[in-house]
């Protein structure tokens, strides 16, 4: 039987030991009228060979165009060793490390992960992951509400430059707790939140969210925004791209004070394949003083009976299995395997590799912008510096352009016109380090043709 080792003899002997006649007897506590009839909509079992063939056929349907699409999920080179190690059975098929002594592999790795994320963001500490970037931002908002005891308003400033889906997810998750999300509009020239447009006396604000880079790929004026928010007693929640951290000021160093209070983001760029949208992982870091409000698992270093160093799950009193209805979050299963991949990824690329990945992606996007903007009917939307993504305005409707590019085997970018109709025919493009000079040329030539 697939995945069931019992021989008939075993089954017989086991029923005897139980004192039951048949396996069916073991279900005698289920009221008879509830017993299900059958599973008609489920096909009969197939062997691995047949399933493998089916899946190969289906995977073959999903072609892989040359992609300039980012919008929250980024194509980066992933060293071959990352997933070969990550899918080792001992990592892949272990549970949450409840028995620390039999889980030092996972625990030490997560402690290393926490250190790396704290380093990247220049924050004091990190947790061991949340689901994804969007839900991590929602958790950050809930955490800020708990952490900012001075504020009573539950008002959260949410720039319109935050990823539109992140804004939706935050709304879905926090809306039941009397939290108000106030949209902060962006500057049409810079594509960023202009600090000068923020009110001098904004009243009681619990927290302000600052994306860096923002959804348009543009860099926010994080120092001024942080200072403004903190001077108004609001906590600062940074939402950052972890690759960008190798190049740009990390949230721990934003503003004139102690930097952001809480930092979160999508971990996917760190060694996780695009894989149709998941599994990715959300990360969250914070200032030490907020640690007891942190959601999610945290690993700590300790010693054993003999004084040897080891690692355990710690501060569990924050979590649902101990604190139940008063927990910092309901999260239980997180995205452990993906943090495993990210930890190995960061070890393999190192600080210099990550910096070069970031710099190369940045410069590729710059070059792409130059090439594309040289085409008639294409112009930059914004003048702020950007990381590795930027918005273009086209002379034709974006959906038409994208379909035409698709026919050329190019995934041209993300259509901004639904989420931001005020921008006109705007499109977001991204060129990571995976793109060659020839790829950029290829795109430019195709776009020229399409717009001609």
């Amino acid at each position, binding site marked *: 039987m697939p995945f069931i*080792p019992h021989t008939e003899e075993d089954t017989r002997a086991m029923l005897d030991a139980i004192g039951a006649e048949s396996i069916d007897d073991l279900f005698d506590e289920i009221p008879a009228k509830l017993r299900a009839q059958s599973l008609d909509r489920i096909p009969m*079992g*197939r062997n691995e060979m047949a399933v493998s063939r089916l899946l190969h056929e289906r995977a073959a349907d*999903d072609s892989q165009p040359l992609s300039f699409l980012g919008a929250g999920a980024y194509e980066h080179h992933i060293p071959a060793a990352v997933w070969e*190690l990550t899918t080792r059975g001992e*990592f*892949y098929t272990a549970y949450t490390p409840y028995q620390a002594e039999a889980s030092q592999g996972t625990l030490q790795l997560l402690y290393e992960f926490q250190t790396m994320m704290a380093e990247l963001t220049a924050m004091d500490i990190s947790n061991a992951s949340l689901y994804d970037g969007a839900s991590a931002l929602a958790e950050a908002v809930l955490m800020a509400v708990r952490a900012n005891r001075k504020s009573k308003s539950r008002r959260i400033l949410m720039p319109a430059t935050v990823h539109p889906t992140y804004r939706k997810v935050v709304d879905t998750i926090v809306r039941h707790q009397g939290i108000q999300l106030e949209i902060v509009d962006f500057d049409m020239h810079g594509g960023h939140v202009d600090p000068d447009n923020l009110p001098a006396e904004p009243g009681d604000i619990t927290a302000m969210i600052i994306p860096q880079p923002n959804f348009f790929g543009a860099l926010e004026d994080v120092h001024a925004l942080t200072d403004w928010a903190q001077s108004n007693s609001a906590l600062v929640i940074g939402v950052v791209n972890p690759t960008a951290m190798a190049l740009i*000021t990390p949230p721990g160093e934003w503003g004139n004070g102690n930097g952001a209070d809480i930092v979160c983001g999508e971990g996917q760029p760190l060694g996780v394949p695009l894989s149709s949208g998941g599994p990715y992982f959300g990360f969250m870091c914070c200032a030490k003083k907020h640690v007891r409000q942190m959601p999610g698992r945290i690993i700590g270093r300790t010693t054993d009976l003999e004084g040897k160093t080891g690692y355990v799950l710690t501060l569990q009193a924050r979590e649902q299995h101990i604190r139940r209805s008063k927990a910092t979050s309901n999260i239980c299963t997180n995205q452990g395997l993906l943090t495993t991949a990210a930890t190995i990824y960061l070890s393999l690329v190192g600080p210099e590799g990550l910096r070069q990945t970031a710099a190369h992606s940045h410069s590729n996007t710059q070059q792409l912008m130059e090439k594309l903007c040289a085409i008639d009917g294409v112009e930059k939307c914004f003048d702020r510096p950007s990381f590795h993504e930027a918005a273009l305005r086209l002379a034709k409707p974006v959906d038409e352009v994208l379909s035409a590019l698709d026919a050329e085997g190019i995934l041209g970018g993300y259509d901004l016109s639904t989420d931001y109709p005020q921008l006109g025919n705007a499109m977001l493009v991204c060129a990571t380090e995976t793109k060659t000079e020839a790829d950029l040329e290829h795109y430019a030539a195709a776009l020229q043709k399409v717009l001609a």
Partner: protein
Amino acid sequence: MNNTHTPLIFEHSRPGRVNTTHTQRSTATAHSIPGSLLRKTPPCLPEVSEMDAVRHYTRLSQKNFSIDTHFYPLGSCTMKHNPRACNSLAMLPGFLRRHPLSSEQHGQGYLSCLWDLQEILKDVTGMSAVSLTPMAGAQGEFAGVAMIRAYHDANQNSERTEILVPDAAHGTNPATATMCGYTTREIPTDGNGDVDVEALRAVVGPQTAGIMLTNPSTLGVFDRRIKDIAEIVHDAGGLLYYDGANLNAILGKVKPGDMGFDVIHMNLHKTFSTPHGGGGPGAGPIGVSKRLQPFMPIPVVGKKNAADKEVYYWLTEKDLPQSIGRLSAFMGNAGVLLRAYVYALLLGREGMTRVADYATLNANYLMARLSQAGFDMALPQRRATHEFILTLKRQAREQGVTAMDFAKRLLDYGFHAPTTYFPLIVPECLLIEPTESESKETLDAFVEAMAAIQQEAEGDAATLKGAPYTMPLRRLDDVKAARELDLRYKTKPVSDING
């Protein structure tokens, strides 16, 4: 197990060691970014060679128990075999390299798998519709309770502020109720492990938004009065939430939809065997009854006919305007869903029921053998479902050893410990779930180990107190960890970050 000391990866790091295989060999700079926005000092990531990294993480991996190496009867966690085909097929390049926002046209293969999976899960649960988007059980719970709330709101029923939760429930249940803005009211369990129906009757009322029920419960029994409970709550105007994290024992045997439930979440990382990855990822799809269908979280996969072909597409806000909304940036843990789908295809209709058969057989057999070996069961009069509870209350009293001591000593015997101290209502308990994929020989060996440990406890309890002895480390100090917080390596001589 690899018992040698493994330094942190940072301790292998040397300044200036650059692994150029993974750098860009480019001279790209960031000249267009103003200095004030540039990072001043690079992050202290490890600087190691590829070989150092490979060696380090290979050796670390060897310090884990896992299903691939050990019997892991962690109750409520369903640590069953994770077929390797699920992994390799989910990682086919066509799936793996696809951008989540690329067009539906470039994702028909992937979407068709998800659509099939929705159909399979509808059949398994007996519900009307399924959304695959929640990323774990707890997020499925959130979605479910948020739908209950959306339903009441849509019916202008906002005075319903309470969610009922049995005291045996998993911690995520009350925590979820809180996230959805509800207060939790605990319902006691009766002496037979069923929900105390009289107590329930006493507390339902117009303030009841719904009940979150786990069946089979975390006590490892099937609540026989489930229909009564359903009626009581429904009659009071509340909705029924089914915590389906543990479907292993009822696959093809009984469908939550038939019991009258309005919404259920499943843990594909348990019942559908997707790997736990040392903590995740999971997938917590929800199934809903007709009346909750308009509130489902998006996206959901739809199918339509276009130009004589079946075409799969995403249902979004436009199709489900009353949806509670989105729960993730894209569409949930896509790759986990694929793994579960492959598993479902391999099992098929007959295989599903067989899972329930043998998961139940294994649990009942292990319970019987452990009883015969002199251990006390929490509910000896009941059938086990996929799991059961053993209590060491007597041993605690007589020999002064705890469930924790047994758990740690089991590691020395080559078995991962069962779940300890959960559910909270049974003292000194071990919640034991063998799963269908373990053989009789393994179960027998586990019983022998338990018996041997009991002998040790009766002989010299100190042996147990000092366990484990054969792991890379002796028993670890949790209290110290929480008191003297050390949550990251001090990569640089900055002021004390921890402590």
